[in-house]
C-alpha cells in the first residue's frame, strides 16, 4: 500500500499514461493481429520514433522554426504522426500496386527507420538527454498537458474502434462481401489505419517504441489463446494490457528498473505462463476423457 501511495503522489501522470497505453494499444493491436499485420506493429513504432528524431533534427537545423507556445511534446507528436501516417499511406499504395513482398517492404521500413533514428540522434544535442530517454521508454516526467493530449487521442481512437467495430471487422474479415454490400472499403481502411497511426504516434511519444510494440502485440496474442468470442478477444487484450502496465509500474518502482522494459518483460512472462498453462489444461482434459 505504501508503494502505491508513493507512486500516486510522485508519478501519478506517468502511471496514468502507462495504463492508457496498456488499455488502448492492445485494442488497436487486435486489428493488426486479425489482419495478420504483426510485422507492421513492429515497424510502425520504429518509423514513429524516426519521425520524432527527424522533427528534432529539423528543429535544431532551424528548418522547423520555433513556434510561439509550441512545446517539445507537440514537435515530437508532429514528427511522429507525419512519419507514421506517411509510412502507412506509402505501404498501402505499394500494396495496391502489387508486386514485391509485403513483409519485405515492412522489414525494409523497420531497418531504415531504426538506422535513421540513430543517425539523427547522434548528431543532435537533444539526443543525449530527453530524446534518447523518450525513445528508451523512460516514463518519468509527464506533464498534465501531455497526459491530456494522450487521453484525448486515445479516447477518440477507442470510440472509433468500438462505434465502428461492425464495419471495421467486416472489411477485415470479408472484403469482397463488404464490396457486394456497397461498403466503401477504402474509407474504412483509412479509418482503421488512421486510428492505428495515431495510437502508435502518441504511444511512441509517451512510452517509446519498445513498449508500444510490446503492448500492440503481446496482449492480443495472449487474449487470442483465451478468448472464445470477438468481444472477449478485445476486452481480454485490453484487460491484460492494463494489468501488465499497472503491475509492471509497481515492480519497476520497487526494484528501481526502467518502466517500459519491465512492462514488456512482464508481458513475456505472462504470455509464456498462459501458453504453457493452456497446453497443460488441454492435456489434462484429454487424459480425463474416457478412451474408446
Amino acid at each position, binding site marked *: 500500500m505504501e508503494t502505491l501511495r508513493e507512486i500516486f503522489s510522485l508519478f501519478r501522470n506517468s502511471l496514468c499514461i502507462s495504463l492508457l497505453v496498456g488499455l488502448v494499444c492492445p485494442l488497436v493491436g487486435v486489428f493488426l*493481429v*486479425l489482419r*495478420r499485420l504483426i510485422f507492421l506493429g513492429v515497424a510502425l513504432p520504429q518509423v514513429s520514433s524516426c519521425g520524432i528524431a527527424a522533427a528534432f533534427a529539423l528543429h535544431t537545423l532551424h528548418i522547423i522554426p520555433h513556434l510561439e507556445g509550441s512545446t517539445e511534446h507537440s514537435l515530437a507528436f508532429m514528427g511522429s504522426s507525419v512519419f507514421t501516417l506517411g509510412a502507412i499511406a506509402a505501404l498501402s499504395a505499394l500494396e495496391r500496386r*502489387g508486386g514485391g513482398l509485403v513483409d519485405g517492404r515492412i522489414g525494409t521500413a523497420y531497418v531504415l527507420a531504426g538506422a535513421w533514428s540513430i543517425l539523427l540522434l547522434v548528431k543532435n544535442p537533444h539526443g543525449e538527454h530527453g530524446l534518447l530517454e523518450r525513445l528508451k521508454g523512460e516514463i518519468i516526467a509527464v506533464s498534465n498537458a501531455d497526459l491530456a493530449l494522450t487521453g484525448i487521442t486515445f479516447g477518440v481512437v477507442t470510440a472509433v474502434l468500438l*462505434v*465502428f467495430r*461492425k*464495419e471495421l*471487422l*467486416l472489411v*477485415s*474479415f*470479408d472484403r*469482397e*462481401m*463488404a*464490396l*457486394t*454490400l*456497397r*461498403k466503401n472499403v477504402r474509407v474504412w481502411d483509412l479509418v482503421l489505419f488512421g486510428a492505428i497511426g495515431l495510437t502508435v504516434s502518441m504511444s511512441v511519444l509517451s512510452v517509446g517504441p519498445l513498449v508500444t510494440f510490446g503492448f500492440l502485440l503481446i496482449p492480443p496474442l495472449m487474449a*487470442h489463446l483465451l*478468448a*472464445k*468470442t*470477438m468481444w*472477449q*478477444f478485445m476486452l481480454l487484450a485490453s484487460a491484460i494490457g492494463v494489468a501488465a502496465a499497472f503491475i509492471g509500474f509497481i515492480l519497476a518502482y520497487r526494484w528501481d528498473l526502467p518502466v517500459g522494459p519491465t512492462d514488456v518483460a512482464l508481458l513475456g512472462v505472462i504470455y509464456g505462463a498462459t501458453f504453457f498453462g493452456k497446453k497443460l489444461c488441454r492435456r489434462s482434459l484429454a487424459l480425463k476423457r474416457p478412451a474408446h
Partner: protein
Amino acid sequence: MAVARGSGTLAPVLLHAKDTNATDDSLVRLDGVAVGYDRHAVLRDIHFRLRRGSFTGLLGANGSGKTTLLKTLLGILPPVAGRVKYEGDNRVPTFGYVPQRESLDSIFLFTSLEVALMGVYGRVKPGRTIEAAEREWVRECLRKAGAVETERQRFSELSGGQKQRVLIARALAAKPDFLVLDEPTTGLDPAAAQSIIDLLQAIHREGKLTLLMVSHDLLTVRRYVQEVIWVHQGKIEQGRAEDLLTRRKIEEVLGLEWS
C-alpha cells in the same frame, strides 16, 4: 446460345445476348465487356445475359477466368472495358454472395450468428446496432439454411458443409435479388455436397431468386441448373444445360477423355 470473342479468336454465333434492345427479363447483361486485373484483360468482348429467376452454372477449367468474371458481375472488380448493365433502370441488384469458404480467415473468433448477421450490414447505417427484427430475420435464414443449431458455435470450428450453410444463410440475410456462389460444393463429401445443392434448389424454387454458381461438379450442375456459361480459352459460351453439358462439350473444354 451466346458466345463472346476471346482474344484473337473468332466467335461463333451470338444470339439473345447481342439483342440489347429486346424487351426481356434480364437481370444482368454484359455487352462487349472485358474483365481482368489492373487493366489487363483476362476475358474480352463478353456478351451474355442472366435471366431473372434463372439458375445458371458458370463452368470452366482452373485459371480460365471464372472468378474474375464473377467478381466483375458483383462489382468487386471494375470491368477493364465496357459496362455491366442491370435490369431496366440499371439499378444495381442486391447481391447475396457466397465466397469460397477457405478465403475466410480462421483467426476471427466469430460465431455462426455473427457471420450470418453480416448479411444485413448493407441495410444498417455505420455505427448503428442491429435491430431485434433483423436479428430474428437472420435466425430465420439460418433456420432455412439448416444451420440454426450452430448459431452459438465458432464459425472456424464448423465442418465444411456447416460453414457453407452459414454462408448461404448470410447471403440470404441480405434479401438478395441475385445469389452468387463461388464453388459451394468444393471440398465437401458427396453427401454434404448433395445436401447443399438440394438446399440451393429449394431456395431457387421457393424464392424465385436468380442464382449463379461457379462449380467444378459437372454431374451436379447437369442435374440442377437450367443454363450454363462455359469460360474456355478466353471465350464465353452460354446456353441451356442440356445443350452445353454433353460429353463431347465437356471433353472439348476440359480436355478430358471418358471411357
